[in-house]
């Protein structure tokens, strides 16, 4: 649990952040999203004390961040930045081993951990002995992630980790991050200015504007009920209705009774795939099956349209 309590930051007498209060539950993948200069990086860097607040406090598991020596705190929190920030004079394996070595792990344990983490981050063995400049951007970013994971921290901070990558690589790494989050249950705080990335990854989304929180909630909450014009525009205006269908399941608008039809869909599919199925088959009604394949009802196109409006 990471808690911000009325945190403020000033530069040259100008308030750039806050007062900001926010709590990020254990195991969340919390995405801070907003336009450039809104204070996302500043917020993120306060968690590992790279920036100290001018007012208010930040607690991790009820312990104030300021009560720990900064270096000790940071060795317990993974940190990934946009450009990778790999050490150019160290081979990939030494980059990955950075924090374990700062923590004085035994040699054998470090070596074993390098291989383990390389596997988690899908880094091929052959890359371990290369220097960072001999890697592609995507490979460098995987190494950055592996380096952040190496000492097995409970919290990982990522500042636009995929911002510099091409769309295909970005999508692949996003998928792997979602899987990693799902498998490890780590608390991840990720900064991006790309709302689609936020929607694709976040369990919690914090939309920021001019140093303040414009709205926070689950992706579906923010898509369904943007609290201001700013949030509505930022989540994509009219397109938000389409995006919302990604987060709604067939079972939410299921009608009982067996209206038989030769095309079917399952209860746990998204409304978006239901709509796609209707468009490709030319039907406005589909039969709905449960996990084990038994028919449990039907879904109607007007119910999907209704769901996209809420």
């Amino acid at each position, binding site marked *: 649990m990471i808690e911000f309590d009325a945190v403020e930051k000033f530069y040259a007498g100008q308030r750039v952040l806050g007062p900001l209060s926010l709590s990020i539950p254990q195991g969340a993948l919390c995405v801070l999203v907003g336009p450039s200069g809104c204070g996302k990086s500043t917020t993120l860097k306060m968690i590992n004390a790279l920036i100290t607040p001018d007012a208010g406090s930040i607690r991790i598991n009820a312990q104030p961040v300021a009560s720990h020596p900064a*270096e000790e705190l940071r060795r317990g929190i993974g940190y990934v930045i946009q450009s990778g920030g790999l050490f150019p004079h160290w081979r990939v394996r030494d980059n990955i081993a950075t924090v374990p070595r700062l923590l004085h792990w035994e040699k054998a344990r470090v070596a074993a951990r390098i291989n383990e983490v390389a596997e988690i981050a899908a880094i091929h063995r052959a890359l371990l002995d290369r220097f960072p400049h001999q890697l592609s951007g995507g490979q460098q970013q995987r190494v950055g992630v592996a380096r952040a994971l190496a000492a097995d921290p409970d919290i990982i901070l990522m500042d636009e980790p995929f911002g510099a990558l091409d769309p295909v690589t970005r999508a692949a790494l996003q998928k792997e991050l979602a899987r990693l989050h799902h498998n490890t249950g780590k608390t991840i705080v990720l900064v991006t200015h790309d709302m689609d990335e936020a929607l694709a990854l976040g369990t919690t989304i914090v939309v920021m504007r001019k140093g303040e929180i414009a709205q926070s909630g689950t992706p579906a909450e923010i898509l369904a009920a943007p609290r201001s014009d700013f949030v509505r525009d930022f989540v994509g205006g009219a397109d938000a209705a389409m995006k919302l269908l990604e987060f709604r399941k067939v079972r939410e608008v299921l009608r009982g009774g067996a209206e038989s039809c030769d095309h079917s869909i399952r209860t746990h599919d998204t409304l978006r795939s239901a709509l796609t199925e209707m468009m490709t088959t030319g039907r406005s009604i589909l039969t709905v099956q449960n996990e084990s394949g038994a028919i449990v009802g039907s879904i109607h196109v007007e119910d999907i349209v209704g769901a996209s409006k809420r």
Partner: protein
Amino acid sequence: MMRVGLLTPLLALAFVALALFMPATAPFFHWLFPENPRPVFLRASFLELTLAHAELVLISAGAATAFALGVGIFVTRPAGREFLPIVGALAAVGQTFPPAAVLALAVPALGYGEAPTLLALFLYSILPILEGTIAGLHAVPADVREAADGLGFSSATKLTRIELPLAAPYILAGVRTSTIIAIGTATIGSTIGALSLGSPIVEGLAAENTAYVLQGALVVALFAILVDRGFELLERRLARQSRSELPASRPRRAAAAAAP
């Protein structure tokens, strides 16, 4: 590449031969200057002169490296950053002082001989190394520094494991420039009584014995070229290890080193 590979050993051979067996060149210099009754400098052996010269350069460049590294590191830390402009200005002004003037001013305080020479060489060697250190530390990419901070490096560990290794090519380039300048400038020390390869040059100029001047200049030039070559090899090895970019190469001072 081939020619350089062959040239360096040949120059090294010539340097060693001249330092050890200069008297054997007597017939050649006699032929060159038939009027000259003493065509080879004999007051001290050229081996002795070379060793004395190398000692002056080693001590002054070593002290200047330690000093400039310390100052360069200090003015790039948060605590010393405010001193950066003034230190840069001071070092630059120091460099514009003519070496002969430094010697003249140092003699009353330190007497004749090695001490004022070492002081002058030390002062002259500081600026290039200081500039190299500051440039190298500033060239460490901001994201690399941010990553080091974010991962929990202490500032001392960050300096020794990340910043200095990345700045090393720049620092080495500064040490190279300083050392080559010092090899040339050390010859002036002989005008105030320090033994060096400048001794035959100074005495030759005073006694109008061109053969002495040539002999001193030849050995100093070979010395400077070989040391420069050594630094180049070192820089290449470093570049291959660290894979970091080399700083833009500085103008060669080796040729100027022979003339006092």
